[in-house]
């Protein structure tokens, strides 16, 4: 730990070339937090007076209990480089002191939103990959997110200790494993061709890959070994590094380097010969307590041990030796300092991703140059609950200018449109705060390139916002963050005591503020709903709600509720007709399912209401086989005007048709939000207006007559087109050893899941299983799975697609019919569906 005062820390913050903002990202359980801990233990900045009585890693209690990270936590590290190690550094720098603002992010897929928020305010990412498990689904997700934000990655192959102790693999085999991990990561990164960011792939021989054992606190890059051997071989370090990776072999017998394995028994790959084997040797010597052999070896390596450390035995001895020889902090921190960009470098290319306005205005320029004298541009990425309940710190990153205590700032919310007054406030920053361990220290101001927390703005910032100087009225906001997961799991909450309702409402508001992903809504029946990304996420939210935001007032939580979608299987069996209340107008309609993939295209926004009709027609005719003219006759999308259903005009020569279009669309928006089966949203239904008979007097064909009629005819056409329910389905990825497979299959079968991919990870006894699992069945899935596999399997679930339930909801007794009546009951509707005759009229 480095003891610091706020003033000293503040001094380094001015040296924008010597700052690194970086996040640690990885799949769950790959050892992010453990690795971070070892960094913090060595280089974490801690307030001088608080030193000794706070623990940096002491975060939320539930995090410790579950052994997973829930909220991303920021920590500042201080590292002083030696002149010698900096001699190869080409970039700009001011002195040898470095400030590293590190954000440890959660790995569980349910908390991906935290990762998104962390990435926005950092410039580089340390990607941690378990050397045995390899690149997993969440590694991939967060890596993609990082690259999308133009975050430069470096990789560390973690849990090296497992190779040596648990699996005891031979050098060449281990090399192949590492190579595969790195290649897998590079495959993902290679898809991001970005001329400004340059090559983002990682190479051990360039020093952008580290090998670490977070648990034991040691790590190395090839640089460490290259330095060691460069002198011995009389080549420079760069040359040596290249030799230590890839197809370079050394035969100690002949003392020759070759590009191929010569076949001689002593010929070994450079990496194996010079890196892996020595480590292995040291470790095994330590583990076997062969101290007589150990001391000379250590002496050769220049590792000194204190006398009391020499007394240690076995694992403890090994840990201490390795930590002294290859300390994780220096290897990783040097890698970050060398290969991750400083704010001033990163903002040059990130400005395009960040700034919404024109890229040549003063704000863009200031961000690009990371100009401390420029106008303030600050992005608030998350709200952190403060210790006094109900208040929040606004946490974010200064991209240009500086933010100071007492300063008046313009707060531009996510809905702010330049030139308008919507979602805009001008307020004073009461205090600017920096984090020193668990403690917050007030500072006068914070210059660009740093992260900052602000007090006094929480009322005006909902989740995120852009801050600028009061006078800068022309500034555009910084682009809003995109989240990779969506809240699909919902529970209804109510308070046990009716009079606690105001508390609940207040609590929900605060919950919505503290978590970027959670959505708090209300059902038509008046029930409060909390929607989260997954079961675990919800569990944490509910805990926070009850304990932190409601002061412990008791709440009643319903079983998880899953929302369904309503769709149709076939084209309506006939054209249905409905009459307006005055019987003077008639609408004729048919429903048909959309072509495969069209609904997804609408979801993704490839096709939408704002498109140019011509380009839309092109996509529809080329990809989905639509008639070109028809494609131009799409009236609208719905629900919410953008949803994956539409109304198409198929009428020919109907008078006054334009006049009722808005009314029909209004009826459609309404009906598509609440389908005829169970009032769930419709999906992938195309409604065709076949014919319309209208009264000759405009007064008799007004909205009042058409809107309810349009709704009825849409319901009638839905019911005549073999309506079906769609249920949400998770993509589940499970990693487990072979003996757990039986249990996994058993649980999946029981939960209506089906496996579509089963791969053994080459070189490991682990299997990677991908399966589809209905969301309805996913509750309690994790725990059942853990029980069935004695804790060896851990699933990651991400929403994947909507799956049609084959049974007919209109036929009593089927599963779908049961489901419909359950939903209707829950919503407080009549249990019986409204019959078709209520919607359809006859002549």
């Amino acid at each position, binding site marked *: 730990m480095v003891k610091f005062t706020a003033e000293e820390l503040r001094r380094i913050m001015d040296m924008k070339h010597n700052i690194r903002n970086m996040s640690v990202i990885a799949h769950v359980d790959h050892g992010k937090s453990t690795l971070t801990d070892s960094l913090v233990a060595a280089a974490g900045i801690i307030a001088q007076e608080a030193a000794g009585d706070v623990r940096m890693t002491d975060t939320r209690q539930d995090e410790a209990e579950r052994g997973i990270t829930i909220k991303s936590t920021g920590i500042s590290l201080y590292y002083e480089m030696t002149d010698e190690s900096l001699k190869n550094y080409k970039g700009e720098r001011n002195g040898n002191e470095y400030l590293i603002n590190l954000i440890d992010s959660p790995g569980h897929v349910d908390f991906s939103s935290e990762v998104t928020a962390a990435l926005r305010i950092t410039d580089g990412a340390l990607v941690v990959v378990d050397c045995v498990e390899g690149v997993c689904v969440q590694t991939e997700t967060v890596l993609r997110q990082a690259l999308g934000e133009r975050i430069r990655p470096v990789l560390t192959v973690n849990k090296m200790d497992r190779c040596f102790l648990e699996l005891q693999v031979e050098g060449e085999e281990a090399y192949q494993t590492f190579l595969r991990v790195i290649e897998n990561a590079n495959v993902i990164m290679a898809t991001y061709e970005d001329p400004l960011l340059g090559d983002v792939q990682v190479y051990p021989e360039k020093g952008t890959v580290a090998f670490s054992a977070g648990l034991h606190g040691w790590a190395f890059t090839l640089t460490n070994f290259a330095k060691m051997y460069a002198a011995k071989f009389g080549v420079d370090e760069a040359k040596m590094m290249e030799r230590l990776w890839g197809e370079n072999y050394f035969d100690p017998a002949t003392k020759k380097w070759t590009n191929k394995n010569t076949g001689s028994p002593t010929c070994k790959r450079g990496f194996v010969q010079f890196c892996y084997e020595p480590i292995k040797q040291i470790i095994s010597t330590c583990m076997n307590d062969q101290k007589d052999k150990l001391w000379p070896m250590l002496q050769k390596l220049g590792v000194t041990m204190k006398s009391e450390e020499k007394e240690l035995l076995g694992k403890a001895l090994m840990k201490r030796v390795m930590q002294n020889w290859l300390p994780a902090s220096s290897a990783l921190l040097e890698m970050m300092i060398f290969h991750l960009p400083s704010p001033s470098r990163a903002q040059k290319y990130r400005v395009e991703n960040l700034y919404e306005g024109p890229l040549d205005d003063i704000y863009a320029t200031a961000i690009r140059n990371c100009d401390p004298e420029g106008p303030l541009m600050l992005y608030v990425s998350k709200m952190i609950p403060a210790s006094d309940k109900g208040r929040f710190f606004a946490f974010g990153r200064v991209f240009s200018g500086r933010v100071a205590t007492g300063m008046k700032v313009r707060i531009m919310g996510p809905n702010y449109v330049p*030139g308008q007054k919507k979602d805009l406030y001008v307020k004073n920053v009461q205090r600017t705060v920096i984090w020193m361990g668990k403690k917050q220290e007030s500072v006068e101001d914070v210059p660009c390139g740093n992260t900052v927390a602000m007090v006094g703005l929480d009322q005006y910032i909902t989740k995120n916002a852009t801050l600028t100087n009061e006078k800068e009225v022309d500034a555009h906001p910084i682009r809003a963050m995109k989240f990779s997961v969506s809240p699909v799991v919902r529970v209804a909450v109510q308070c046990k005591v009716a009079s606690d309702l*105001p508390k609940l409402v207040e609590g929900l*508001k605060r919950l919505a503020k503290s978590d970027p992903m959670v959505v708090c809504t209300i059902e038509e029946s*008046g029930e409060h709903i909390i929607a989260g990304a997954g079961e675990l996420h919800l569990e944490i939210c509910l805990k926070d709600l009850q304990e932190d935001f409601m002061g412990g007032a008791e709440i009643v939580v319903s079983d998880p509720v899953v929302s369904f979608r309503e769709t149709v299987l076939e084209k309506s069996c006939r054209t249905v007709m409905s009459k307006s209340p*005055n019987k003077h107008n008639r609408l004729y309609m048919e429903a048909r399912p959309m072509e495969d993939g069209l609904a997804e295209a609408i979801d993704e926004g490839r096709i939408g209401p704002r498109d140019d009709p011509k380009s839309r027609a092109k996509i529809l005719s080329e990809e989905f086989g639509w008639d070109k003219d028809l494609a131009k006759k799409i009236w609208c999308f719905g629900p919410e005007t953008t949803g994956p259903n539409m109304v198409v005009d198929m009428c020919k020569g109907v008078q006054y048709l334009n006049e009722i279009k808005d009314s029909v669309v209004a009826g459609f928006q309404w009906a598509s939000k609440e389908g005829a089966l169970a009032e769930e949203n419709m999906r992938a239904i195309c409604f065709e207006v076949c014919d319309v008979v209208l009264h000759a007097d405009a007064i008799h064909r007004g909205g009042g007559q058409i809107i309810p009629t349009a709704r009825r005819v849409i319901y009638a056409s839905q019911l005549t087109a073999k309506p079906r329910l769609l249920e949400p389905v998770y993509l589940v990825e499970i990693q487990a050893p072979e003996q757990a497979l039986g249990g996994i299959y058993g649980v999946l079968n029981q939960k209506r899941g089906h496996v579509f991919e089963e791969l053994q990870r080459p070189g490991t006894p682990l299997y990677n299983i991908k399966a589809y699992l209905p969301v309805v069945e996913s509750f309690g899935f994790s725990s059942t799975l853990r029980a069935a596999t004695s804790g060896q399997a851990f699933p990651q679930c991400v929403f994947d697609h909507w799956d049609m339930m084959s049974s007919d909801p209109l036929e009593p007794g089927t599963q779908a019919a049961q489901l419909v009546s359950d939903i209707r009951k829950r919503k407080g509707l009549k249990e019986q569906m409204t019959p078709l005759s209520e919607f359809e009229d006859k002549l």
Partner: protein
Amino acid sequence: MDFEANYEISRTVDFIRTRNFTKVALQFPDELLKDSTRVAKALRSELGKGVRLYVMADTAYGSCCVDEIGASHVDADCVVHYGHACMSPTSTLPALFVFGKASIDVNACAESLRHCLSTASKHIVVLYGLEYAHALENLKTVMAELLQFSVSNSSVHFAEVACSSINPSGDKMTEKEQLYSHNGVSDIEEVHKYANGNSSLISVDCNKLEPCTKYSLGGLIWNMPVGHKMEDYLLFWIGSENPAFTNVVLTFNNCEIVRYDAEQSNLLKDFAYQRRILKRRYYLVEKAKDANIVGILVGTLGVAGYLRIIQQMKELIERAGKKSYTLVMGRPNSAKLANFPECDVFVYVSCAQTALLDSKEFLAPVITPFEAVLAFSRGSKWTGKYVINFQDLTASTTSEVVNDTEEARFSFIQGGYVEDIQPLENGEHKESSLALAEATEKALNLKNQCTDSVLFKGKARFGAEFFAARSFQGLNMQYENPLPQSYVIGRTGKASAYEDEK
């Protein structure tokens, strides 16, 4: 039952005679209309030629209210109202109420009441539908006999019918005072306290010298010793499941309630439906918070104070930065409401028993004035208290705290914080130097940019904006086909199926 007794002919005759009314309107609900001629005949034979009687039916609003507008068409002096009544005070005409007399098995009812008393450890307040008021005395005696021998520390309170006739509210007296003065409660009771929104009236009862709280709801009044809360009592309702009962359940949603169904002679305790209504209303309030354009539906032209509450609503809505339109459309139905698709929510000003209007068919929610107050004044919270009578509202919300924090409002409908539209500026430009620049900027704005959100997502701020966004702008000269078209012969026959469609 005896026709004379049921329609209280003699009492009606007395009422008309003593007050010297000459033109009397008899208002019948639809279900009693069949008896109207007999009633009129009976009254005429009693009253003689001096009094002219008019039969009114098919009231424009709820048939529970006194149709003063209808009565004033014939310039009537008073209205005799038959059947179920909401007992809302009238504004111009005196009215006599004839509730009718529904049959009830008093002994069975008393037995259930006794059963309740023995099982519940609470005091009981007996409330009833007005059609059972005639049996009250009978019930009291039977109960007294039953309780003679039982040892119980719980007691039974009976609510009284406030009055069976209403005089229009004067200018100086509030309706409430009027109401009580008719019931023989002395006007000296000055200590008014409209607490809890339940229009409770703390008064010092001269006879007992014991302070008590007065409650009144739907034409019933009852007393409660001061310090006792309604929550401590068990409500015993005699009657069917009608709006009057729903009102009781909503108003006293914290109380335990049992209902004695007089027709079936059984006791019911499950009111999940009514409780659900309350939650649903809560949702509607939340939904109304998101509204930009509010339609005020005039649902009564008779209930005293309706103009004042409409005015109050208008002011409330304006203060909230929203736009209001006042609409008079008789009894609302889905087709009528859908003629105003620009309104995001409607506030229905009507008597208490027709106030709760909710249907799946409505495009926009319809809320009561009380709910509007909750929805449109920032900082007010839904505490579970519920006021249905708007008269109670006028009194209870006069001292409203305007808690003007600038924090964005949390919308439970959209599941996040939203920015409310600022109150419309009255054309004043603070930065006059920039006014021209701003105007030119707006002039070049692309119109119809997001008509969808204006039309279908309730983003319009006022009616004109909504109309401007509509895709059909009325007839225009540039038709797709500019050539004149030859005439064709139209359809003939009825709209339900034209000749050529048969």
